[in-house]
């Protein structure tokens, strides 16, 4: 087998390919969470958004025959769920963590209910962009078949960075997230800004779901997200609320996810389930390393998690 002929490199290539392939949903969800948290609210419901996105993308792609319409549908479904969350947290005395958990359960419940008929049929998938034609090694060629949504995510990361730095709306989102009182004094509507940020962020999260069902793993099942929407919250903290750092962190998490399967592909199956747990262990590690009661995080939006 060729796998054996390239030996250890197979694992490395597998992990790198996994970083891009598995990192794409992390990237889109974490950018969505980053935008949401920059406005001062947390959306734990993105796990539900991811599922509803995956389900809608698959269903619409199956019905219309166009995976691109599926991606659009995923974005819209995510935005609708985001709008509900945004409305809830704009009410006085609504805690965004509690509302987020409710939305998580509601979103995944909706996805499972509406997605039941689509578990069997196969929907048209997103076309891969093949950059590996130059190589004769099949693993390299396979690894370089990249999801179009990955490029979309990379562009979104840099655009979001520029958005926060050099646009009026971006600065308004930062102002609202860091100091709602100051934003109000500047005449910025805090509820409206948050609404826009949460809805847009959820649309991005929904598109992350489309990558799951229409590219990799490329089918609609109920276990498709395996907590990636929640891990994105940790990832945003790890990335210090910086969109471009979200990109690197997503690749890292995606790579961690691919460790187990890559090892198995070269015949090492010892501790397969343990290796599969590596993204979760990474999440815990990140939380422990970055959170200290003795200091605040640099880059954290000032109003994050407060009731104002």
């Amino acid at each position, binding site marked *: 087998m060729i796998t054996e002929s390239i030996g250890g490199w197979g694992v490395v290539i597998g992990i790198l390919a996994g970083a891009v392939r598995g990192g794409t949903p992390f990237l889109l969800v974490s950018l969505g969470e980053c935008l949401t948290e920059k406005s001062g609210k947390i959306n734990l419901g993105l796990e539900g958004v991811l599922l509803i996105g995956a389900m809608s993308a698959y269903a619409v792609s199956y019905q219309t025959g166009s995976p691109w319409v599926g991606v659009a549908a995923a974005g819209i479904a995510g935005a609708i769920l985001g709008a509900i969350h945004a409305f809830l947290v704009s009410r006085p005395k609504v805690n965004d963590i509690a509302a987020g958990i409710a939305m998580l359960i509601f979103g995944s419940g909706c996805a499972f209910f509406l997605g039941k008929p689509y578990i069997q049929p196969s929907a048209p998938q997103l076309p891969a962009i093949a950059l590996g034609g130059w190589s004769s090694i099949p693993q390299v060629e396979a690894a370089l078949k990249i999801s179009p949504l990955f490029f979309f995510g990379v562009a979104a990361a840099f655009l979001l960075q520029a958005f926060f*730095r*050099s*646009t*009026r*709306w971006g*600065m*308004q989102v*930062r*102002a609202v997230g*860091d*100091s709602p*009182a*100051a*934003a109000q*004094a*500047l*005449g910025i509507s805090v509820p409206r800004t948050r609404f826009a940020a949460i809805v847009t962020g959820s649309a991005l999260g929904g598109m992350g779901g489309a990558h799951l069902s229409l590219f990799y793993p490329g089918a609609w099942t109920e276990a498709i997200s395996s907590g990636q929407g929640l891990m994105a919250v940790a990832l945003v903290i790890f990335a210090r609320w910086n969109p471009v750092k979200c990109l690197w962190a997503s690749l890292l998490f995606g790579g961690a996810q691919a460790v187990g399967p890559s090892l198995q592909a070269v015949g090492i199956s010892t501790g397969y389930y343990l290796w599969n747990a590596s993204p979760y262990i990474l999440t815990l590690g990140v939380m422990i390393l970055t959170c*200290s009661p*003795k*200091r*605040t995080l*640099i*880059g954290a*939006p*000032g109003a994050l998690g407060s009731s104002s």
Partner: protein
Amino acid sequence: MLIPPPAERPLQPLPLELVKLTKRFGAFVANDQISLKVPPGTFHALLGENGAGKSTLVKCIMGYHQADEGDLVIDGHSREIRSPYDAYQFGIGMVYQHFTLVPAMTVAENLVLSRPNTPGIIRWKEEREHLREFMKTAPFQVDLDTPAGQLAAGQKQKVEILKQLYLNSRFLILDEPTSVLTPAEADEVLGLIRDKVKAGHLSVLLITHKFREVFAFCDEITVLRRGKFAGAGKVADLRADDMAAMMMGGQREARVVRKLPRERGPAALELKGLCANQDNGLPAVNQVNLTIHEGEVVGIAGVSGNGQRELVEVLAGQRPATGGTVQVHGQAYSATRAEAFQHKVFLLPEEPLRNACVPGMTVAENIAFRSFDRPPIGRAGCFVSRPAIRKFAQELITRFSVKTRSTETPIGDLSGGNVQRAVLARELGPGTAQVLITANPCFGLDFAAVESIHSQITEARNRGVAVLLVSEDLDELLALADRLLVISHGELVYETTPAQAEINTIGHHMAGH
């Protein structure tokens, strides 16, 4: 509207007049037929106790509230201002008591964001060019690339004022702008604004409690009392007593307790080489050595953000020390509940609603925080008697004249002065305190409340309590302290007594020179 856009507007001061302005909130009349006239190019002071209606009045000018009756006359025309944006269009700007800078953004970003006509996509190169040009004409200089959150309070206040000048405001409302500044900084800032007024660029309406500022910088005053007009006049024709009488309504009882001369007692609170970090892990308190004796008030002066907050938090048990020791009565003290009870250490922190109360719990429960687990309130080690809490609280509420609807009102619903009184009642009411640690106990309170709190502190000192008083108000420190220390960059850099104190020398050390 036929108003030229702000950037092209000539720099002329704006005449503004309020005619019989009335603002009601339900049955409560916050402003009752108030008239006020600020001629162009003058510096006008608005005086009054807390709750006199000053804030409501300026919020009507700024468009946050709509007046129910009366007129707002700008440049000879009756105008309606429906939002702060309208106010901006007329060239009216306000510097708030609390900062309105976004802490995570740089000064440049804050300034650009403050412009209502900021373009959708910001060309930073051009904006920076424009900002550099503006800074050449600005009365004070601030580094444009520093995040606002890292500026000292004085610097922030300067940025707030720069922001208004950047917006080409022609009528500036200043709401107690100097409460966070050193006396020298306050004089500098107000002096430079005064120059702008004199040069005919601005009119200013200044809300203040400090007569010194009125006499040094203002042309005319208007006084409010309980929502009504209580007097007005030219500063040149008035004395401080007249102004105080207008504010208090002539029923002012001067009942400040006098400091009794006393021998210095044994050491009560000793800090040796105390160090602590601020929230971001950088050192805030550096090698503080301090001994406070029984019956002595030691004052610590300093510009906010020089380690005072962290120092008090360490003593309150809210923050771990990174080095050094704290001793009370010669024994190590780490601010546990048992130790605080054993050594009778009591606390009157700043922002009491945040640091000393649970806002959602009732006044009675908050007052019982020190005693709920001990007889007569605590029973059998685990039960709490609610009637005993109410009885205990009722007595203290009466004795410390806390204004509350009932003992069962959530303490968060009380006004700032009454929250502070309730905390004071809890800490000093039982009369057992031996060490009192207090920080800015009178911040934002009116004359009557300040007097009563000062009296309580002095009375405690006369009883033999060792008092640590951390304050940003030099007048307060000079009035209460037996010894005065200056903190700068987390270190105690200067010691004096109020009798020998020279404001300039203290200010010099506060500024860190």
